[in-house]
């Protein structure tokens, strides 16, 4: 598995992959900045009581949460496209005749992809946090509560939950890629599912939809903005347990399917 992990690292040097990092940083700065400026200059704020929330310990993570949906879309696209490309490009056959242990290869590759998602998201959030701190000061918003022990604790809890949710989203991307085996289809289904399908499901089946994976991963962040689901209605503990069960399910189904499937790519 370690060899499979190491073999993935040269692939991250492609400009298309590397370009994702500055884009992610730009958006994680841009969307919170948009929310911040709207909160202070317009009565039609993205969240009704955002001006009241900002000077509290929840202020920083509320602003950061405006980029959540985008981060989720980038993560699922990156994982689904990267994995499905091995089928679409035909490179999978080259790899599996060198590492016939298919699950070892899959876990090695996913470990590398998850590490990439986690590191790039963490980097983007820290840069965004720095910029928000500077901007908030210049807008006259008190950032002192953000920097208290409680505020910093809330920030790191948010960061941990965001990364955990992104792991879940990435495993969903893996699941879709393994089953579809095509870049276009995998990315199309992943993005449509993450951004649209569950919202549609919620419109017709409100209670049931809250137990669907993207809802559960999103609830982990527990923040409220136009771009996130908000506080988990079932409670954090139940949310965490069912979210983990979804992740285990994605892993199991992907493993069984990948181990048994013929490689025609």
């Amino acid at each position, binding site marked *: 598995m370690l060899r499979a992990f*190491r073999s993935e690292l040269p692939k991250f040097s492609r400009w298309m992959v590397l370009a994702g990092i500055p884009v992610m940083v730009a958006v994680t700065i841009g969307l919170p900045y948009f929310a911040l400026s709207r909160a202070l200059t317009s009565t039609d704020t993205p969240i009704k009581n955002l001006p009241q929330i900002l000077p509290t310990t929840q202020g920083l993570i509320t602003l950061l949460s405006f980029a959540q949906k985008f981060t989720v879309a980038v993560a699922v696209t990156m994982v689904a496209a990267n994995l499905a490309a091995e089928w679409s490009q035909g490179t999978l056959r080259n790899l599996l005749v060198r590492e016939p242990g298919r699950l070892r290869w899959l876990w090695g590759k996913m470990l590398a992809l998850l590490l990439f998602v986690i590191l790039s998201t963490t980097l983007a959030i820290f840069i965004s946090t720095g910029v928000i701190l500077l901007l908030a000061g210049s807008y006259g918003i008190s950032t002192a509560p953000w920097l208290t022990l409680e505020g910093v604790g809330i920030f790191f809890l948010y960061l941990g939950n965001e990364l955990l949710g992104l792991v879940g989203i990435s495993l969903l991307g893996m699941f879709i890629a393994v089953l579809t085996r095509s870049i276009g289809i995998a990315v199309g289904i992943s993005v449509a599912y993450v951004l649209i399908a569950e919202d549609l499901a919620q419109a017709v089946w409100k209670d049931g939809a809250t137990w669907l994976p993207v809802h559960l991963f999103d609830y982990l962040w527990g923040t409220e903005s136009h771009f996130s689901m908000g506080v988990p209605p079932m409670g954090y503990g139940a949310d965490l347990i069912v979210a983990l069960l979804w992740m285990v399910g994605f892993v199991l189904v992907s493993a069984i399917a990948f181990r048994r499937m013929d490689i025609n790519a």
Partner: protein
Amino acid sequence: MTLHSNVSPIRQAISLSSDSDLVIETHGLSKHFGQRKAVDALTIRVPRGSITGFIGPNGAGKTTTIRMLLGLLRPTSGSATILGKEISHLRAYLPRVGALIESPAFYPGLSGRKNLEVITRLGGYPGSRIDQVLEIVGLDRRAKDPVRKYSLGMKQRLGLAMVLLPEPEFLILDEPTNGLDPFGIIEMRDLLRGMRDQGKTILVSSHLLGELEQVCDWLVILHEGKTLFNGSANALVERRSELVVEAADAAQRDLVVGIARAAGYRVQLLNGSLRIACPADWASELKLRAQDAGATDITISRREASLEESFLAMLKGEH
């Protein structure tokens, strides 16, 4: 009366003396996709140290067979061994095998060197092999260019470099000369012969029968998922050889035609000479019978059928 033999390409005398001489052995290997039998009870044997031509029209089952041998497809039934190991034990033999399946596939945004680095890290091969194989295939000067800028021939060479990375005992090459220019084809031929001389076994799947004829000493011919022929190239050529008889006049020619037909052989008149489809060693018998019948002024020579002729005859059911 004279006898000539027209023996073409250089081939190694290959024979099977024991099972340990085999690199591939399959028994009733089958792969069905729904109702379609892509490979149907295939039983073949490929000897160690040979260059084996794996021949068949499109859809004959060549690539499906190769994929099963490499663990990419699961056989529906049957068994097979590679280098003496069951194909269910991939780890026991794949590290000793280098394979290029269909057109070579790469990461187009990565350089040739980076593509090899991916495989080197995955296979656990020493990094120094990258420079060695790049030099062997003549890509050392373009190694830093992204693969999307490579020509088809360069991609083919990079695919071969990938195959050579583990220093394999057994190579499986699917259409290795595809996209190569004439010089590239000659170089590839020399490379294959050189590797065989080093003791490696090579299975080459190709549609270029003329190319295969020049390098192969063993042949496996497939049609509609079944084996049509599995044996040495010499055996096939001898099986398909014919005698060419030039007679001084029409009367003597007619006598020869009568003798050959009486013996049950097919005779064709082509550009004034007779072509008799019969075993090569029947020439001396024909000579005696012709003399007894009064046809004393004839010339008999042996003509080997080309691989292409043999292949087409087999597909038509002429055994």
